[in-house]
């Protein structure tokens, strides 16, 4: 017997309409141009009403071929490229790459340079998390936290700019240290410029205002009943699943795993600094929000301690003018604001690396989407995607 056309079935008499009318899933193409996909992610979703039955993320709209470019660029040029991977925390991207070269060359970095790197990395973390703090409520419909969080982020970015000369893409690290700060000029070519005057005091003030905005956001967002309704119990990632999909960073910690590369790896002097690793209990959207909120506070603590501890001394180790990295390979990873960021650098000797494989946090964090979005509602999809806090530049590279 042939299948009854559902449209025809509707016009039949009551007796015949007992045939169940098929309601096929609707294919909803979300993105690449969509307000909540953080850029150019495309999701091909099958929706049954508002419930998503399956979702297929399509990435690559932002692919810029950095890994391939790295094979034809000198090491110093690649530093400029890696800034642009996760552009909301450009400085933090440089650290593992530079550390990888330093490890291959077996260089000892001066302690002052190490501390400057640490302070600026944590500033990048604050700025990245403040972007999350502003964009996440916006995705849920609250527009006001955006402006307040971005206002404070501007203070942090101004400080970053005063040292590095760039707000988003500092390109500040040099193999063996950090770049002599802006303001050198030709007459002072030989003299290495230190941090700008008053930078440390200004940073201390900025940390106070960042802590103040954290409290403000707590009052406006964290305790908000409607925010709770949208996030608590939504998009739960159990610990086992989080590990299975290779989540890292705040997303992993929100699922209750106390793992932070700042405590594990020793590429920056975190061992002398006292800070806590906030973890979540349920692994839902609210926990992921809360962990990031708490990490901003911890980053402020880290910076304040680092300012107390920063020694004086040179900014740069002795490095040959033409950088040649000896043959060898290494993998260096660091705790980026978005999660674990690693570079596998293979050198055949010479000025250009043979291969640079970039392990970016957002790419792995995004891989859980098909599993976690299955069976969720369309509005929850926005809440879950926002809470994973990925940047498309970090996904596609």
């Amino acid at each position: 017997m042939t299948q009854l056309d559902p449209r025809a079935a509707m016009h039949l008499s009551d007796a015949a309409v007992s045939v169940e009318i098929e309601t096929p899933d609707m294919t909803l193409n979300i993105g690449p141009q969509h307000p909540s996909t953080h850029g150019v992610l495309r999701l091909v979703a099958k929706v049954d009403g508002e419930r998503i039955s399956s979702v297929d993320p399509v990435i690559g709209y932002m692919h810029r071929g950095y890994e391939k470019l790295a094979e034809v660029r000198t090491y110093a040029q690649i530093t400029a490229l890696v800034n642009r991977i996760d552009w909301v925390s450009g400085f933090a991207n440089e650290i593992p790459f530079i550390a990888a070269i330093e490890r291959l060359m077996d260089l000892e970095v001066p302690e002052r340079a190490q501390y400057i790197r640490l302070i600026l990395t944590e500033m990048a973390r604050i700025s990245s998390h403040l972007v999350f703090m502003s964009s996440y409520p916006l995705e849920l419909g609250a527009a006001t936290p955006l402006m307040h969080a971005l206002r404070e982020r501007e203070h942090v970015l101004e400080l970053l700019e005063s040292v590095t000369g760039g707000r988003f893409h500092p390109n500040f690290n040099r193999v063996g240290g950090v770049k002599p700060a802006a303001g050198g000029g030709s007459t002072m070519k030989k003299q290495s410029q230190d941090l700008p005057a008053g930078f440390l005091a200004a940073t201390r003030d900025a940390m106070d205002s960042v802590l103040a905005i954290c409290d403000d956001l707590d009052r406006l967002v964290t305790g908000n009943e409607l925010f709770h309704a949208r996030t608590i119990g939504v998009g739960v990632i159990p610990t086992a699943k989080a590990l299975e999909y290779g989540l890292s960073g705040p997303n992993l910690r929100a699922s209750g795993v106390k793992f932070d590369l700042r405590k594990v790896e020793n590429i920056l002097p975190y061992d002398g600094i006292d800070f806590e690793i906030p973890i979540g209990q349920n692994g839902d959207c609210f926990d992921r929000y809360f962990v990031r909120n708490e990490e901003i506070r911890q980053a402020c603590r880290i910076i304040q301690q680092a300012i107390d501890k920063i020694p004086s001394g040179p900014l740069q180790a002795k490095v040959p003018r033409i950088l040649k990295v000896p043959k060898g390979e290494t993998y260096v990873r660091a705790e980026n604001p978005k999660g674990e960021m690693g570079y596998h650098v293979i050198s055949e000797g010479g000025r250009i690396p043979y291969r640079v494989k970039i392990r970016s946090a957002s790419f792995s964090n995004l891989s859980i989407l098909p599993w976690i979005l299955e069976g969720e509602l369309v509005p929850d999809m926005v809440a879950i995607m926002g809470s994973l806090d990925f940047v498309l530049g970090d996904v596609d590279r």
Partner: protein
Amino acid sequence: MNFWLLLLIKVGLVLGVMLPGALVIIFGELKISAHMQSRIGPYFAGGRFGWAQPLADGLKFMQKEDLVPADADDRVYKLAPYVVLMGTLALFVVLPFGPETVARDLDLGIFYVLAVSSLSTLGVLMAGWSSANKYSLIGGLRAAAQLIAYELPLVLAVIGVAIMAGSLSLNDIVTAQANWQWFDTLPTWVNIIPPYMILQAVGLVIFLTASLAELSRIPFDMPIAESELTMGYLTEYSGLRFTMFFLGEYAGMVAMAAVAATLFLGGYWLPFVSDDVLNFVGPVVLLTKVMLIAFVFIWLRWTFPRLREDQLQTIAWKWLIPAGLANIVLTGFFKVVF
């Protein structure tokens, strides 16, 4: 006077109140949200305070290309914005601005208000369906679900007032509030308080919540839900038709706020002022109350995130409707006993 001339004057009056009212609220929203977000907001348009910004925006929209999707149901698509606007405009007909300043004082005033205010949702559904866009369709269906859920609490909240006043005519309801006497033992200044604001406080809260949903404003703006459905049923609209939707939204705010003010805050009534004076002062009093309620709407919008569709239904069916029913029972009890 000639019937047609009178009609023209009345239509002019309604338009004259609705359009500037909507523009003032748009401007208020721009400025208030700016202050809440530590911005300045419009500043240059019009010379001072950027007062002409809503007008400039409207002019800009009119210059934009009027785009109709190729697959759209042409006639329905083009008609939808005007249906939305018409539903809102028609609501002003029965609103009393003074004891005699009313376009048409219907005996079934509230009934008319509730019936006409649902018309604009029909327009939204038309827009969502005819756009030939999946996002628009979902937005339109959400709007329909929202209408069913929130029309009921709206009616239940109004019934309490109707029982108290003993009439469905809006003018009579205002008069009933004006004539209300609190107990003699209380001092006379108590009479300043609009009586239904206290006695029907539950109804007022239900009415305001439900009208937020009816206007689809945050926290109930799921039919638009910018971050989920791009712009919901508005996605495909541009140019003048978008302006009509935009104007309709804010005119709707004026209308719902005016109804709430009339039902619960005493409308045009001002204590210790005679009817003759109220005929002139009334519109100002009513508009002041409208602006106060509109401020609350704006305040909520820029504070809260949006709810989910199922949470909206939960609030309507599990909280607002039982509360509304309880309110009716209590009001009836109160009316019979005292």
